[in-house]
């Protein structure tokens, strides 16, 4: 398990131990990865983050169309694996969790421990860091620093 924000690590480690999730991704609503577990290649993480954020954005719009303020969680059921996607508010803005699990876990267990993870993250989240101007010369350096934190290289 690797995270860009150190305060995320203890709650996420507890979630992983209790839920038996295979893959887990925490990201911002814009798809920026905060923490990951189980992914080997950075390209997979970036793709999963972008797709997860897009799926939640799409279902949010469907919800708006049918008069539901928002769908907080959705589950994609496969033959051997399932994907759980949910968003939640923190002091750092809206975050998204993407969890892939197999027959070692169940939707009920993942939901239960994800709710606990959210409660712990909300409590542990430091206040919003002051916004910094994104400069081209900083962008690549920060991106590389995030990839090093998430993949250790």
């Amino acid at each position, binding site marked *: 398990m690797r995270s860009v924000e150190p305060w995320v690590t203890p709650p996420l480690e507890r979630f992983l131990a209790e839920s038996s999730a295979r893959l887990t991704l925490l990201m911002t609503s814009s798809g920026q990865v905060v923490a990951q577990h189980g992914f080997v290649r950075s390209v997979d993480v970036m793709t999963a983050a972008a797709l997860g954020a897009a799926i939640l954005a799409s279902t949010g719009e469907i919800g708006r169309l049918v008069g539901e303020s928002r769908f907080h969680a959705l589950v994609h059921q496969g033959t051997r694996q399932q994907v759980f996607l949910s968003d939640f508010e923190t002091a750092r803005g809206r975050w998204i969790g993407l969890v892939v699990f197999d027959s070692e876990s*169940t939707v009920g267990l993942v939901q*239960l421990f994800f709710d606990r993870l959210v409660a712990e993250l909300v409590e542990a989240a430091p206040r919003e860091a002051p916004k910094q101007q994104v400069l081209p010369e900083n962008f690549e350096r920060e991106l590389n620093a995030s990839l090093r934190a998430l993949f250790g290289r």
Partner: protein
Amino acid sequence: MSDPVELLERLSSVRGIRGSILVSADDGLIVAESLMTGVDGRAVAALAASLTNRMRRATECAGRREPVFLQLQAADGTVLAAPCGRELVLVAIAGPDVNVGLARLEMLNAAGRLA
């Protein structure tokens, strides 16, 4: 299949049983419940289904086929579980005053009707 809510209410009326839940074995989600307030049914359902699934694997690995009845004795009472076929698990939460024999009989009877 009998009406699940009716069966749960009958089971919950056994002396010492504080509540009962019918859980989807594959998902760990509640199908029907008859619980006292203060019991986190969602957590009990998810964890009891997981425990039952793991016990099923253990008994099958030991060549003893599927479990019929589980009794988890805790400091302040008991959690009982009876698989209803492969798809459902009947879970009862009992206090220390429960007559486990009677509760077991009622649960196996209900599980047979729900399977």
